[in-house]
Protein backbone atom coordinates (compact mmCIF):
# COMPACT_ATOMS: atom_id res chain seq x y z
CA UNK A 1 0.00 0.00 0.00
CA UNK A 2 2.87 2.37 0.84
CA UNK A 3 4.29 1.78 -2.66
CA UNK A 4 0.99 2.88 -4.27
CA UNK A 5 0.69 5.92 -1.98
CA UNK A 6 4.31 7.03 -2.53
CA UNK A 7 3.98 6.52 -6.31
CA UNK A 8 0.78 8.61 -6.28
CA UNK A 9 2.55 11.36 -4.30
CA UNK A 10 5.45 11.23 -6.80
CA UNK A 11 3.13 11.56 -9.82
CA UNK A 12 1.15 14.45 -8.27
CA UNK A 13 4.30 16.31 -7.14
CA UNK A 14 5.92 15.89 -10.57
CA UNK A 15 2.78 17.23 -12.27
CA UNK A 16 2.76 20.30 -9.99
CA UNK A 17 6.53 20.79 -10.55
CA UNK A 18 6.00 20.63 -14.33
CA UNK A 19 3.08 23.08 -14.27
CA UNK A 20 5.15 25.57 -12.25
CA UNK A 21 8.39 25.10 -14.26
CA UNK A 22 10.76 26.51 -15.50
CA UNK A 23 10.97 28.18 -12.07
CA UNK A 24 11.46 25.93 -9.04
CA UNK A 25 11.40 28.51 -6.25
CA UNK A 26 9.74 26.16 -3.76
CA UNK A 27 11.95 23.15 -4.56
CA UNK A 28 9.14 20.92 -5.81
CA UNK A 29 11.77 19.16 -7.92
CA UNK A 30 13.44 18.03 -4.70
CA UNK A 31 10.15 16.74 -3.27
CA UNK A 32 9.31 14.81 -6.44
CA UNK A 33 12.81 13.24 -6.52
CA UNK A 34 12.45 12.18 -2.87
CA UNK A 35 9.14 10.45 -3.69
CA UNK A 36 10.50 8.93 -6.94
CA UNK A 37 13.61 7.59 -5.17
CA UNK A 38 11.50 5.76 -2.60
CA UNK A 39 9.00 4.59 -5.25
CA UNK A 40 11.75 3.05 -7.40
CA UNK A 41 13.39 1.33 -4.43
CA UNK A 42 10.11 -0.10 -3.10
CA UNK A 43 9.16 -1.20 -6.61
CA UNK A 44 12.37 -3.28 -6.82
CA UNK A 45 11.78 -4.57 -3.27
CA UNK A 46 8.18 -5.63 -4.10
CA UNK A 47 9.13 -7.26 -7.44
CA UNK A 48 12.04 -9.21 -5.95
CA UNK A 49 10.06 -10.30 -2.89
CA UNK A 50 7.20 -11.39 -5.18
CA UNK A 51 9.56 -13.39 -7.41
CA UNK A 52 11.49 -14.99 -4.53
CA UNK A 53 8.73 -15.56 -1.97
CA UNK A 54 5.47 -15.24 -3.91
CA UNK A 55 2.30 -14.11 -2.14
CA UNK A 56 0.46 -10.82 -2.69
CA UNK A 57 2.28 -8.08 -4.60
CA UNK A 58 0.59 -5.24 -2.68
CA UNK A 59 0.01 -5.40 1.06
CA UNK A 60 -3.37 -3.74 1.54
CA UNK A 61 -4.34 -3.31 5.18
CA UNK A 62 -4.63 -0.61 7.83
CA UNK A 63 -0.99 -0.94 8.96
CA UNK A 64 0.32 -0.57 5.40
CA UNK A 65 -1.96 2.44 4.83
CA UNK A 66 -0.74 4.13 8.03
CA UNK A 67 2.84 3.48 6.95
CA UNK A 68 2.06 5.07 3.56
CA UNK A 69 0.67 8.18 5.29
CA UNK A 70 3.71 8.34 7.62
CA UNK A 71 6.10 8.06 4.68
CA UNK A 72 4.36 10.96 2.89
CA UNK A 73 4.45 13.06 6.08
CA UNK A 74 8.19 12.38 6.51
CA UNK A 75 8.93 13.35 2.89
CA UNK A 76 6.92 16.57 3.30
CA UNK A 77 8.73 17.27 6.58
CA UNK A 78 12.18 16.84 4.96
CA UNK A 79 11.09 19.10 2.07
CA UNK A 80 9.74 21.78 4.45
CA UNK A 81 12.95 21.75 6.52
CA UNK A 82 15.02 22.26 3.33
CA UNK A 83 12.56 24.97 2.25
CA UNK A 84 12.76 26.80 5.60
CA UNK A 85 16.56 26.56 5.72
CA UNK A 86 16.92 27.93 2.16
CA UNK A 87 14.02 30.39 2.77
CA UNK A 88 13.38 31.33 -0.91
CA UNK A 89 10.77 33.97 -0.01
CA UNK A 90 12.98 35.53 2.67
CA UNK A 91 10.20 35.18 5.28
CA UNK A 92 12.50 34.05 8.10
CA UNK A 93 15.03 36.79 7.27
CA UNK A 94 12.26 39.39 7.63
CA UNK A 95 11.21 37.92 11.02
CA UNK A 96 14.82 38.14 12.28
CA UNK A 97 14.89 41.86 11.42
Amino acid sequence: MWLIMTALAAVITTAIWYIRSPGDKYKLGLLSLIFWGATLMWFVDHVMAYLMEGGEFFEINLDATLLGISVIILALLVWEIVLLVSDPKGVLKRIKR
Partner: protein
Amino acid sequence: MACFLVPAGEAVVTTVVQKVVENRAKKAGGERAKKTGLSWSRRLGWLNKLLWGGTILLALEHIWHGEVVPWPPFLTAMNNPAEVAPMLNEMATIGVAMAIFVTIIWAIIVLIVELRAKAMPQAKASPAGGGG
Protein backbone atom coordinates in the same frame (compact mmCIF):
# COMPACT_ATOMS: atom_id res chain seq x y z
CA MET B 1 16.18 -6.17 6.85
CA ALA B 2 18.83 -3.66 5.84
CA CYS B 3 18.59 -3.44 2.04
CA PHE B 4 18.35 0.37 2.16
CA LEU B 5 21.96 0.56 3.44
CA VAL B 6 23.27 -0.24 -0.07
CA PRO B 7 21.62 2.79 -1.76
CA ALA B 8 22.64 4.80 1.34
CA GLY B 9 26.26 3.81 0.75
CA GLU B 10 25.96 4.78 -2.90
CA ALA B 11 24.41 8.11 -1.85
CA VAL B 12 27.42 8.87 0.36
CA VAL B 13 29.81 8.13 -2.53
CA THR B 14 27.83 10.14 -5.12
CA THR B 15 27.52 13.08 -2.69
CA VAL B 16 31.31 13.16 -2.28
CA VAL B 17 31.76 12.82 -6.08
CA GLN B 18 29.29 15.68 -6.63
CA LYS B 19 31.24 17.96 -4.27
CA VAL B 20 34.53 17.13 -6.03
CA VAL B 21 32.97 17.73 -9.48
CA GLU B 22 31.44 20.99 -8.24
CA ASN B 23 34.79 22.27 -6.99
CA ARG B 24 36.55 21.27 -10.24
CA ALA B 25 33.83 22.95 -12.32
CA LYS B 26 34.23 26.16 -10.32
CA LYS B 27 37.97 26.12 -10.97
CA ALA B 28 37.47 25.36 -14.67
CA GLY B 29 34.91 28.16 -15.02
CA GLY B 30 31.97 25.93 -16.01
CA GLU B 31 32.91 25.55 -19.68
CA ARG B 32 31.05 22.23 -20.08
CA ALA B 33 27.92 23.67 -18.47
CA LYS B 34 27.98 26.59 -20.90
CA LYS B 35 27.97 24.18 -23.85
CA THR B 36 24.87 22.15 -22.85
CA GLY B 37 23.30 24.34 -20.13
CA LEU B 38 23.65 21.42 -17.70
CA SER B 39 26.57 20.71 -15.38
CA TRP B 40 27.64 17.27 -14.12
CA SER B 41 27.30 18.60 -10.60
CA ARG B 42 23.62 19.27 -11.24
CA ARG B 43 23.09 15.88 -12.88
CA LEU B 44 24.70 14.15 -9.90
CA GLY B 45 22.48 16.26 -7.67
CA TRP B 46 19.42 14.50 -9.15
CA LEU B 47 20.94 11.10 -8.37
CA ASN B 48 21.77 12.21 -4.83
CA LYS B 49 18.21 13.37 -4.24
CA LEU B 50 16.78 10.10 -5.58
CA LEU B 51 19.13 8.03 -3.42
CA TRP B 52 18.89 10.09 -0.21
CA GLY B 53 15.11 10.50 -0.56
CA GLY B 54 14.64 6.78 -1.05
CA THR B 55 17.02 5.93 1.79
CA ILE B 56 15.26 8.23 4.29
CA LEU B 57 11.79 6.91 3.46
CA LEU B 58 12.94 3.28 3.42
CA ALA B 59 14.64 3.82 6.79
CA LEU B 60 11.23 4.85 8.19
CA GLU B 61 9.68 1.68 6.75
CA HIS B 62 12.37 -0.45 8.40
CA ILE B 63 11.83 1.33 11.75
CA TRP B 64 8.07 0.79 11.33
CA HIS B 65 8.59 -2.94 10.80
CA GLY B 66 11.02 -3.18 13.76
CA GLU B 67 14.03 -4.03 11.59
CA VAL B 68 15.92 -0.90 12.66
CA VAL B 69 16.05 0.36 16.27
CA PRO B 70 17.56 3.56 17.73
CA TRP B 71 19.97 1.66 19.98
CA PRO B 72 23.06 -0.50 19.15
CA PRO B 73 23.49 -2.62 17.13
CA PHE B 74 20.67 -0.67 15.36
CA LEU B 75 19.78 -3.59 13.06
CA THR B 76 17.65 -6.16 14.93
CA ALA B 77 19.01 -8.93 12.68
CA MET B 78 22.43 -8.37 14.27
CA ASN B 79 21.09 -9.59 17.65
CA ASN B 80 20.68 -13.11 16.30
CA PRO B 81 23.71 -14.70 14.57
CA ALA B 82 21.37 -16.88 12.50
CA GLU B 83 19.82 -13.76 10.93
CA VAL B 84 23.09 -12.12 9.91
CA ALA B 85 23.64 -14.24 6.78
CA PRO B 86 20.06 -13.70 5.43
CA MET B 87 20.48 -9.96 6.13
CA LEU B 88 23.73 -9.82 4.13
CA ASN B 89 22.11 -11.89 1.37
CA GLU B 90 19.20 -9.42 1.22
CA MET B 91 21.63 -6.51 1.00
CA ALA B 92 23.55 -8.25 -1.80
CA THR B 93 20.41 -9.04 -3.81
CA ILE B 94 17.60 -6.53 -3.13
CA GLY B 95 19.87 -3.71 -1.92
CA VAL B 96 22.20 -3.91 -4.91
CA ALA B 97 19.24 -4.24 -7.30
CA MET B 98 17.66 -1.10 -5.79
CA ALA B 99 20.88 0.90 -6.19
CA ILE B 100 21.40 -0.30 -9.80
CA PHE B 101 17.76 0.33 -10.77
CA VAL B 102 17.76 3.90 -9.40
CA THR B 103 21.08 4.60 -11.14
CA ILE B 104 19.78 3.24 -14.48
CA ILE B 105 16.64 5.40 -14.24
CA TRP B 106 18.82 8.44 -13.44
CA ALA B 107 21.09 7.64 -16.42
CA ILE B 108 18.02 7.47 -18.72
CA ILE B 109 16.77 10.85 -17.39
CA VAL B 110 20.21 12.43 -17.94
CA LEU B 111 20.41 10.94 -21.46
CA ILE B 112 16.96 12.29 -22.41
CA VAL B 113 17.72 15.76 -21.00
CA GLU B 114 21.13 15.78 -22.72
CA LEU B 115 19.65 14.77 -26.10
CA ARG B 116 16.88 17.37 -25.81
CA ALA B 117 19.37 20.07 -24.82
CA LYS B 118 21.54 19.22 -27.84
CA ALA B 119 18.52 19.24 -30.16
CA MET B 120 17.50 22.71 -28.97
CA PRO B 121 19.00 25.87 -30.48
CA GLN B 122 21.87 27.19 -28.30
CA ALA B 123 19.89 30.22 -27.08
CA LYS B 124 16.99 28.10 -25.78
CA ALA B 125 19.15 25.45 -24.07
CA SER B 126 18.35 26.16 -20.43
CA PRO B 127 16.58 23.17 -18.85
CA ALA B 128 13.91 23.68 -16.21
CA GLY B 129 14.34 23.45 -12.41
CA GLY B 130 14.58 19.67 -11.90
CA GLY B 131 15.28 19.83 -8.21
CA GLY B 132 18.04 22.42 -8.36
